[in-house]
């Protein structure tokens, strides 16, 4: 996009600026649309689980205008702020949370090449920004001035901060398998049949997915780990004093984060934009035969990705309406006593699995192979890596990885 604008002769800051703005706009549409969709799904699924219909009147039989209706209602609500509140922080908190969640979407690759901004350390950026969201909640709890919201904020901070650790460990497992932190690279490696998905790659990644799912739900404060907004104890946790649009922003941040985390789960374990069956390659919708086919293929991939993410959101909603809530000490104990050790075990397991599988499938010729760097430090995903590279240690080289998986480079 930016290079195309550059050719048109714009000044570089104008070109990059406008390209960035356009992409930000697209991502904003996505970040605003998914909470509305998720809210509608939550109401409908909750209704089904509880043997009732859910919204049916707003906008036709299925009540699909319910979310915009809620949004408008929240917009029209009076803008309340408690007297004991700290005015600046009280207003700032929801937007801080929302921006953090917005940044999560920046690195999610919707299709091959369709990532708003992709580095080769995209996953790391995802984790770094995820840590910011809890700061918004803490500010909200503190700025509301009431004991109960302070309680809620402290609980949430304790929970989210402690669940970042197992989440970080779980996320590293697919990185070890893929050998790169670039989400597009990880997704591209899972092309083809669903057997190529990392979740079926080896028993360790399979177990890691379930730990990831549990930790993601806990990290998002979704039931059965939704302590901070535990209605029964803390009324509404940190969001007690919020109403109207500010509360809606918190609400959107939560649902968008839910979508982002299940999207990340889809990329890391369920093959990102690759469907279970390689339909795109059968229909020839690949970028090699023309930009139009490539575009259609990417559209299909986008559909795949969105469906997988929504599947994850559905599971979270389903869990919320069937399971009671855990106590704060049980949640923290589960994190430190079960999730972290298990995730570490899985990490060690997958590392050995990778090392052993490479030794078995592509034994090295005798003598040591030295690792040789090309002129500029090579980028792993670039693949500009000479075939046979001697390495100082009996080290599985990149090419070993490539040949083992039969990737044509």
């Amino acid at each position: 996009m930016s290079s195309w604008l550059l050719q048109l002769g714009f000044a570089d800051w104008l070109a990059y600026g406008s390209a960035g703005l356009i992409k930000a706009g697209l991502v904003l549409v996505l970040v605003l649309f998914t909470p509305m969709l998720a809210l509608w799904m939550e109401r409908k699924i909750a209704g089904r689980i509880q043997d009732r219909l859910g919204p049916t009147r707003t906008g036709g039989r299925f009540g699909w205008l319910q979310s915009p209706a809620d949004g408008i209602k929240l917009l029209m609500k009076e803008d309340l702020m408690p007297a004991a509140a700290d005015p600046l922080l009280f207003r700032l908190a929801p937007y801080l949370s929302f921006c953090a969640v917005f940044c999560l979407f920046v690195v999610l690759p919707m299709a091959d090449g369709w990532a708003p901004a992709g580095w080769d350390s995209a996953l790391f950026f995802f984790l770094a920004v995820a840590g910011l969201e809890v700061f918004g909640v803490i500010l909200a709890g503190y700025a509301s001035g009431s004991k109960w919201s302070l309680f809620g904020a402290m609980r949430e901070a304790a929970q989210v901060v402690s669940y970042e650790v197992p989440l970080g460990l779980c996320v590293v497992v697919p990185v070890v398998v893929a050998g790169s932190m670039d989400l597009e690279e990880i997704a591209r490696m899972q092309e083809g049949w669903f057997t190529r998905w990392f979740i079926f790659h080896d028993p360790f990644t399979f177990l890691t997915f379930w730990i990831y799912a549990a930790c993601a739900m806990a990290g998002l404060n979704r039931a059965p780990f939704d302590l901070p907004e535990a209605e029964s104890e803390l009324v509404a946790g940190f969001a007690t004093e919020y109403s109207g649009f500010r509360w809606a922003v918190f609400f959107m941040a939560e649902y968008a984060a839910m979508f982002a985390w299940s999207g990340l789960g889809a990329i890391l374990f369920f093959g990102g934009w690759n469907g279970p069956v390689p339909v795109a390659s059968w229909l020839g919708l690949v970028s090699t035969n023309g930009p139009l086919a490539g575009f259609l293929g990417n559209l299909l991939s986008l559909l795949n990705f969105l469906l997988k993410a929504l599947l994850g959101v559905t599971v979270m909603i389903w869990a919320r309406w069937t399971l009671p809530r855990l106590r704060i000490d049980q949640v923290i104990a589960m994190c430190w006593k079960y999730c972290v050790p298990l995730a570490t075990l899985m990490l060690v397991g997958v590392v050995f699995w990778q090392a052993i599988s490479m030794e078995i499938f592509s034994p090295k010729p005798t003598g040591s192979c030295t690792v040789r760097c090309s002129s500029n430090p090579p980028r792993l995903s670039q693949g500009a890596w000479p075939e046979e590279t001697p390495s100082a240690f009996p080290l599985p080289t990149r090419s070993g990885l490539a040949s083992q998986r039969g990737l044509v480079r």
Partner: protein
Amino acid sequence: MNEPSLPSILFFLFAGLACAGAVGVLVFQRIVYMAGALLVSLAAAAGLFFIAGADFVGLVQLMVYVGGTVVLLAFGVMLTARRNQPAWQVPGVQWAVGLAVGGCLLVVLLWTVLAVPQWQTASAPEAAEGAPSAPGVLVRSGSRQTSPSQTGTIGPLGWAMLGVRTEQADQSDALPDVRQTGQCGYLLPFEIISVHLVLVLVGAAFLARAKRPPEPRPLEQGAKVG
């Protein structure tokens, strides 16, 4: 100043933010405002790293400092949450001493900065060829045609972990066999030491816990809640 280029604009923006945040930490009375200002300055520092092309360090800055330390600071603030924050009145003398010491430090810094040869000739930063093409890092065109000079730092870091001296690779084309020359990189041992350090700190914190019997305090009869 000739035609402003994107990196220069961003650079000034982030540098300004960083300085403003730092000053904010000093100026604000309320401790939560200080935490907010600290957050702004550290995030701006992360931005500076991104402009400098060191995306990994930028991310680490974001994750460790902004995501970790400031959250812990806010956590600490909330645990000792006092409604009426004590406003520290700083007597005049301390202001004077502070300004004096700060001033000297500033002078020394400015003197050393201006003494750097490259920055003397060029007034505008974009003239310095050394600055890697930041835009490539920040806003990468979606269609993966990464400009040739595009240098992600994750890859080389990975190899450096395995003992490859990536920084020497730039000079000589063929990398000498690491074992013969014995110039094995020490990044991995360095990392292990830091992890070890974390464990030691956690152990120390655990051992240094205060040990004293709890004194039960009965609820005053008919405690009326204020």
